[in-house]
């Protein structure tokens, strides 16, 4: 593709390729007195990404709206962690594109039929007909919910 503007677009530089040079000498002021007894037991802080995102390249954050999935614990305003690399299986909660619209529902396959099922009795299950176009966009792997 030709870029037709004068701005420079930098290709993404992987961080591991960047040069690092650590010079520990004089990097912290020398302190008098006793060192902290915890110094030898330093561990790195927990990073939630490690727990929630197994595949960064394919993981997207998507905001839930409405209460059609409330019985599955997805409330309006929650942030869903969606992994596009996961192959969708029966009973998983998925973000799907149905006839050009996004929706989040539970995927069900029963006797050759495919359904998108809400987790709320007020919403009937959607049976996917042969005329409809269904594309599974990604699988919901976690939900971040702020309690009231």
């Amino acid at each position, binding site marked *: 593709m030709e*870029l037709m*503007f004068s701005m420079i677009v930098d290709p*993404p*530089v992987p961080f591991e390729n*960047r040069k690092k040079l650590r010079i520990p000498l004089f990097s912290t002021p020398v302190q008098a007195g006793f060192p902290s007894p915890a110094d030898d037991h330093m561990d790195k802080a927990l990073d939630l990404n490690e727990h929630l995102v197994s595949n960064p390249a394919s993981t997207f*954050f998507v905001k*839930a709206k409405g209460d059609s999935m409330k019985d599955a614990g997805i409330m309006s305003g929650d942030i869903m962690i969606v992994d*596009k*690399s996961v192959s969708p299986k029966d009973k998983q909660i998925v973000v799907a594109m149905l006839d050009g619209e*996004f929706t989040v529902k539970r995927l069900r396959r029963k006797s050759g039929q495919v359904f998108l099922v809400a987790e709320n009795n007020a919403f009937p299950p959607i049976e996917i007909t042969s005329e409809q176009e269904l594309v599974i966009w990604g699988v919901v792997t976690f939900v971040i919910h702020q309690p009231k």
Partner: protein
Amino acid sequence: MRFALVDCNNFYCSCERVFNPGLMGVPVVVLSNNDGCVIARSEESKKLGVEMGTPAFKNEEMFKKNGIQVFSSNYALYGDMSARVMGTMRTMVEQMEVYSIDEAFLALDASQGIAFARELRSRVRQWTGIPVSVGIGPTKTLAKLANRYAKKNPSLNGVFDLTTVEPDEILAKIECQDIWGVGRRTSAKLARSKILTALDLKNADMALIRNALGVVGERIARELNGISCMELEELPASKKAIASARSFGHRVESLVELEEALATYIARVGEKLRTGKLLASRISVFLETNHFRPELPQYHPGTQATFLRPTNQTPELIGTGLDLLRKIYRPGYQYKKTGVMVTDLVDESSVQMSLFGNEGEKHRIALQKAVDGLNKRLGRNAVSFGSMGLDEAWQMRQERKSRCFTTRWDDLLVVS
């Protein structure tokens, strides 16, 4: 050893589609900075005859009539999606060269052919939603041609391996100017020697090519013969320059407005320097009036300065940059664009930091870190330097920009 060139199809349009299923099968175009002209087209738009570079304002009617969906460019989104595409490919190959925002060369071994290319293509599609084409060849130049061939022939489903066929028949159909690295001037030169197609160039006398085009041309001719002359450049060449320049949404005359705009661009450059752990030795600043309005007075000045000590500190960059701007600014012109470029970049680690670095310097660096941290958390320019102004009347036109779905908490895709 073989090469693959992977190229995202209509990349910017494809990025828009990932987050907007209503765009499937619909003609889409993406406009340049400032909504000036078309820089990306979906297949449907190409079929409607929309050309690259089509000025947007002259074609509003045509866009509307044909139901073409028009977007301002959203580089935050495209940059993030590019990193995801590259990250996905990295899971399948050891060696890879990111060639541009939407292209990468991969090093393949003998076992990695069409089946591998198909798997790569489907993985990138599933993980990121972006369709790609894959061309395989014994050299980078031939991989690039194979990719082009895959794109031009829909029956190939986006993958083509030039090593499994007799290439001459295909090379005979490719004009010289469509070869990677051959520009319009070079192809005009070649045409004078009756070298019109890639096959002609492949079979041309090497001495003649070297004479006419130099070593670069000879290298291309050798690569067409299957002799690899260009290695994979895995480590990006260290950046020689970082620039930030945009056109204004409307003409700007006052120095104050220019100062605000330039300070914002300089802040962006400072951020990039610090992210890349680089220091700038030189800074240049330019101003432009509108070339396309020859009836108005024209003025295109530029000037530069050298830092005594290379720096990546925004206050220092802004201070010097604005001094330069004040030097070249003349009232009475309608300015269209201003910009900044820093050059002679050096690695932060390669510069001897004073062991007894003074306290003021330390405080300045600490302040800069705090500002960067806040901007990262709260969004760009949440905390800014006073010179960047508040109302930003000069900001570029981006009337049809999609949301930053992958880089801003407030912009996430919403699904019910």
